């Protein structure tokens, strides 16, 4: 029997599992997909928000500011790309100036440090590619960018290194009350557990309703993005938000931690929680925003478009609570923006909630002596000094072989991410960890070679190497 079962290995679930792995507990982390971070975590704006958006007094406000503050340490420990580049909310007219002053005040109320209202000249000095018609902007020094799936993958890897049991391909289909705790049916297994933490993202309400009375509903909302080539990655230096209005929180233009330019998201309510398509209308809306904000933007530099699904709820605040009368079930639901930023603070809070249930469930919380907060650093060959590169190739020649020509990723790096705990088993899994295929050719050249490496390292046939999800086969049969 497990002490705790976390359902969902996205950013929230992996943060909580990793936080719990500091204690001498048996922990199970389940995900329905064949890789961690394969839902909302893999398709979002990748922003660490400063914290002036959330309405005062909400959980969002509370955890955003606290979470933001925790990113430096956690990303250092886990060797995850994170840059505190600052953020701007732009104002192009008097009404928008009024709005950003309001945001500034809200930021002060929420405890956001280092904010300033910038005059036109200051904004243009910071962001020379913004339209001349800019009037001013709200600058927040603590805004940043992070690799969201890299973070979740690193958390999962570190959690597993610290004793968490990770089970993929394990969609939870039933949760029954057992003699003690619950019996969770996932994949073809039944897991007994004293406590369930529901971090199921867009399926959070479904998991909740397997054992609890309906108290909330997820209203999936799709956001579409355009990702641009690195050649235009320096178009902006900070996270540049459009001014929020009644129509929405505003579209964002930002550099990614890898030096691309990201534009998005749109916001569209949808019925199907798997509907991650992109649409003419959605992409046009974000492109129009870019045209209205930047002096010039070349859409021929778009290398890919994608969309992600937000797990919205009616209250528009995070739901982090035990259902009425229960000590052994915790819902962590409705984690839409700023969920990524808030995740470390949510994890901290959820662990406190678990501790409060400790007596009732017979759990004790002894901190492990051998907890290792650090992950074995991943290798980024091109970022090493010539001397280090030389040494590495001498030790392992596969680092001398470039597989991805656009991003200069070596065979050694690809093998490394396959062999790690919670390692890659699919083409996109390798891409999310080591980046081959995320460049301008989008895997046209390297996909066959990465597939060969996956087949070799996992000892499977090329034909059985998947692109991403379970049915995403690439090859059908051998030729005649």
């Amino acid at each position: 029997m497990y002490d705790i079962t976390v359902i969902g290995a996205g950013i929230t679930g992996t943060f909580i599992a990793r936080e719990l792995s500091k204690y001498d507990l048996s922990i199970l982390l389940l995900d329905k997909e064949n890789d961690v971070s394969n839902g909302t975590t893999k398709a979002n704006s990748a922003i660490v928000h400063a914290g002036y958006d959330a309405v005062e007094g909400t959980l969002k406000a509370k955890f955003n500011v606290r979470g933001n503050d925790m990113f430096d340490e956690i990303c250092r420990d886990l060797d995850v790309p994170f840059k505190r580049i600052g953020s701007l909310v732009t104002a192009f007219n008097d009404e928008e100036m009024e709005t950003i002053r309001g945001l500034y005040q809200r930021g002060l109320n929420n405890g956001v440090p280092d904010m300033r209202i910038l005059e036109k000249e200051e904004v243009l000095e910071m962001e020379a590619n913004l339209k001349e018609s800019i009037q001013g902007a709200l600058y927040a020094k603590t805004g940043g960018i992070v690799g969201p799936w890299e973070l979740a993958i690193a958390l999962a890897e570190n959690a597993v290194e610290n004793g968490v049991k990770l089970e993929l391909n394990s969609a939870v289909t039933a949760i029954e009350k057992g003699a003690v705790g619950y019996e969770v049916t996932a994949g073809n297994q039944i897991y007994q557990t004293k406590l369930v933490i529901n971090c199921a993202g867009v399926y959070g309400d479904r998991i909740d309703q397997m054992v609890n009375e309906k108290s909330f509903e997820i209203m999936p909302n799709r956001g579409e993005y355009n990702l641009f080539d690195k050649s235009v990655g320096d178009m902006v230096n900070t996270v540049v938000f459009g001014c929020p209005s009644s129509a929405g929180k505003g579209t964002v233009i930002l550099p990614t931690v890898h030096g691309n330019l990201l534009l998005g998201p749109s916001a569209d309510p949808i019925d199907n929680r798997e509907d991650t398509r992109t649409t003419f209308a959605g992409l046009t809306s974000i492109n129009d925003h870019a045209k209205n904000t930047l002096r010039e933007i070349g859409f021929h530099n778009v290398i890919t478009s994608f969309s992600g699904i937000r797990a919205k709820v009616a209250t528009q605040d995070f739901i982090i609570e035990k259902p009425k009368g229960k000590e052994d079930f915790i819902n962590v639901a409705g984690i839409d923006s700023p969920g990524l930023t808030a995740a470390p603070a949510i994890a901290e809070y959820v662990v406190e909630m678990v501790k409060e249930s400790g007596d009732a469930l017979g759990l004790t919380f002894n901190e492990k002596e051998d907890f290792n907060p650090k992950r074995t650093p991943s290798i980024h060959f091109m970022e090493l000094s010539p001397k280090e590169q030389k040494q590495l190739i001498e030790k392992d020649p596969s680092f001398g072989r470039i597989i991805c020509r656009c991003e200069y990723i070596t065979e050694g790096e690809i093998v490394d991410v396959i062999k790690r705990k919670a390692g890659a088993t699919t083409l996109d899994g390798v891409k999310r960890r080591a980046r081959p295929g995320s460049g301008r050719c989008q895997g046209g050249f390297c996909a066959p070679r990465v597939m060969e490496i996956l087949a070799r390292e996992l000892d499977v046939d090329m034909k059985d190497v998947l692109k991403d999800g379970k049915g995403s086969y690439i090859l059908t049969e051998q030729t005649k």
Partner: protein
Amino acid sequence: MLKYEIVVIGGGPAGLAAAIEAKKSGAKEILVLERDMELGGILQQCIHNGFGLHVFKEELTGPEYAERFIRELKDMGIEYKLDTMVLEVSDKKQITAMNRDEGILNIQAKAVVLAMGCRERTRGAIRIPGTRPAGVMTAGTAQRFVNMEGYMTGKRVVILGSGDIGLIMARRLTLEGAEVLGVAELMPFSGGLNRNIVQCLEDFDIPLYLQHTVVDVEGKDRVEAVTIAKVDERYKPIKGTEKRFDCDTLLLSVGLIPENELSKSAGITLDNITAGPRVNEAMETSAEGIFACGNVVHVHDLVDWVTEESRKAGRNAARYVSGQLINTENKISVQGINGIRYVVPQEIRPENLIGKTEFMMRVDAVYQNVKLVAKSGDEVLRIVKRRHVAPGEMENMVLDLGNMDPKTMKNLTIELVQEEGA
């Protein structure tokens, strides 16, 4: 630091021809750097025939065409390194490269020939809406899987774009037992060679939907359906013209882009239209002593023309190394106008011209009964009649500039003129 007279980056048809010709022209220390496991480049996966009609006056497959050059290169003792990636080229002709066996290589060349070829335009660049499942790939990647790795990429296939690789793959997949349901082309004409339309589509009853594009891709994990629709003259899909195909594969053959990341790192000036380096009569780029040829300069449709252009680059790289190339300030620009999208070379130095000079160009649309008119200033140099020209077929024009007085030569233009009464 390793030292060579000429370093050729890329061991495909362009690099092979350039290296061989440089050697024949007197250069001694030549090194070819190739990132793949073998020489020959993309020709190795082009197992269909139709190569060599101009250069060898016979019809060869891609690998056969490549083999002739590989053999010659080896026989001449030209040095090459495989599985070797060039990381950087500087305008001082210093090259950083890397491979498994030797690690990081620093090379100083007297002249460099850029022959990196091109890559395929991907889905992201053309905004295809819908999901992003497995089963959407470029035609060239599918060609590699089928012809090099020996695996099929799907059973029911829709192809977007009528570029040559897409057309070739329509036939190839059909022969391997797949069903190719149709080829959609955004333009009112195909971007591929006419012979490929006939031999790869018409002969197999594969429909070509001109002025159509993909408006939806369905399927979460693997492609389940693709919807195409007719477009108006502004390329916008027309409601009500949708056709939905149940299929598991969408191949893209929507254009090729010269691979110029290294050229950019060397600070070389690129042409906005070709997306390749601007070159002069010697195939020399804006960086002195750095030459370029083949698809890295502009995308060709026949490898034969790549070979000829690359021989010119190799020959001139050798002339440069031996100090025979004259670098004068007298530079004449060459421009395509009135229906000619671009002309290569973009510039000539008349003092270097010996005998006849060949210009390559593409037209911007399909025309019937036209004249290609070359002028120096207002003076007409040559008129060539064409019954049919199309963007998918490269045009060439030979001008006898060697006999002209360099002092009186004015900027050159080549334009299309509709024949009167036609």
